[in-house]
């Protein structure tokens, strides 16, 4: 019988080899892009390598028990955490913030005329159908809130008078 640890080591080696080859293929594919791109692998590869080595040790030393499931979960947790840290590093750069701000600005600039046109079209259509428009409903809601504010002020005034009366009695 093959030793379980040896068999699992072989399986793992094969998996690692495939992963490495896949990574190299992707790197070659991205390398064909004429514009220079940042190397995303530099962020996660050290963490991935570290995780793989740990996993290799576990496979080599641990017998095949249900504990392997826990170790696999631990490995995935660590990988996700490593990804999270790497992404956080990228996202906490000024370059990223600038790019995000620019993208949002462009989106806002393109969205504004579309929104204006849609709103106007909808307004005209609803008016033609003799249905209250969004602006009219919003305006009504604001009037109700203004009334509510006036009532609150009256309530404040009455409460203040009552407090003074109570203080006078005491």
């Amino acid at each position, binding site marked *: 019988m093959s030793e379980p640890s040896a068999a699992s080591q072989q399986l793992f080696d094969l998996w690692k080899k495939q992963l490495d080859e896949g990574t190299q293929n992707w790197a070659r594919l991205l390398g064909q892009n004429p514009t220079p791109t940042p190397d995303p692998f530099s962020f996660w590869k050290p963490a991935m390598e570290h995780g793989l080595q740990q996993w290799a040790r576990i496979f080599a030393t641990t017998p095949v028990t249900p504990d392997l499931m826990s170790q696999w979960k631990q490995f*995935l947790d660590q990988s996700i955490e490593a990804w999270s840290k790497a992404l956080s590093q990228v996202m906490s750069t000024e370059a990223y913030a600038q790019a995000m701000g620019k993208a949002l600005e462009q989106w806002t600039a393109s969205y504004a005329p579309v929104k204006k046109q849609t709103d106007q079209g909808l307004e005209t259509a609803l008016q033609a159908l003799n249905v209250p428009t969004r602006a009219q409903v919003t305006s009504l809601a604001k009037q109700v809130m203004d009334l509510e504010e006036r009532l609150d002020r009256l309530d404040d005034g009455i409460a203040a008078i009552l407090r003074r009366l109570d203080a006078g009695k005491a």
Partner: protein
Amino acid sequence: MGQERFADIAERFANSYAELGAAASPEMVKRWQDELERSFKRMTNLAQMVQHPVEPRTGQTPREEIYRKGKARLYRYASKRTHRTPVLFVPNLGISRPYIFDLLPGGSFIEHMTKEGFDFYLLDWGVFGPEDNELSFEDCVVKILPRAARKVLESSGAESLSVLGYCMGAPLSASFIASHPEVPVKNFINMAGPIDFSKVGLFGLWLDRRFFDVDRFIDTMGSLPADMVKAGFKLLRPTMDLSTNLNLWWNLWNDKYVESFNALNKWANEYVAFPGEFFRQWVRDFYQGNKLHRGELVFGGRPVRLSAIDCPLFVVGAKEDYIAPPACVRALMDATRSQDKEYVELPGGHISLIAGRGASTHCWPKVSGWLASRS
């Protein structure tokens, strides 16, 4: 090994398993059986979740509405009151719904506080529509919070109240207490509320005035829609969903976990828009101007100076809080005149202070314990 087919190795691996099984100890067999049972239960629960999703019953602590203004509602929770001083709880405005504070029986911050004998009030800011776009941060501090505080005092019959601010509710509360010295606030608790925005982390960088023109954005959009709030928070921790789903799969055999997950997941995907003027002021004066910490705010003609706060103060930060990092929360400690003040930094993130297993053991007893001796 290079020439060997993957299938050969897999077969050998499976055979070695089988041979190991023959020689395995009864304990090992039992553990494999348990693992298989868990896997089976996982599949059953997954099918149940997909085919017959159960609507979680959140917010079960009995309560009554005692005041409303616009979309805001003030609720009083039923309690066996043993402390004289009522507690006004001010959560964040926008972003998410406040039922996270009363998620499920046995896992509810509000249930904990009422069981500890506090007369507990929650200010629910509500879900906003286009008619609320003119509601500003200043309106909340000048028009809503003073009235809510008065209603709490009237309803409880007490002479003073404690104010508990969570997340954005803390700077809202701090602005209110600092600008309304006539309101008898006996104690103030800041749970994960940002105060010094120069230390606020990723959001601070993304909302920096060099990169984000809040005026242009609000003038175009009118408000910050719920979908954009969601996108912003998802970007803050892009691997969060992956991690959540992995943990769900791992614990899917556990019915109790699945029940909590359903409730928390419902909350975590229910975002609330920001009213336009509120968001404009929040970004411009707080994230970009840091005016609260600098003492440069004036609300309703009243200066807002944190140094005017002199009541007992309890500040709670979370070690892994990416929304309000501990340094920006802790800043309140040095900004007030309070003599009786305490800071604790607890494990976990922003949400783990108010929901989850850790919260009920690490956080809530500390908050209720500190407050009990001063109420």
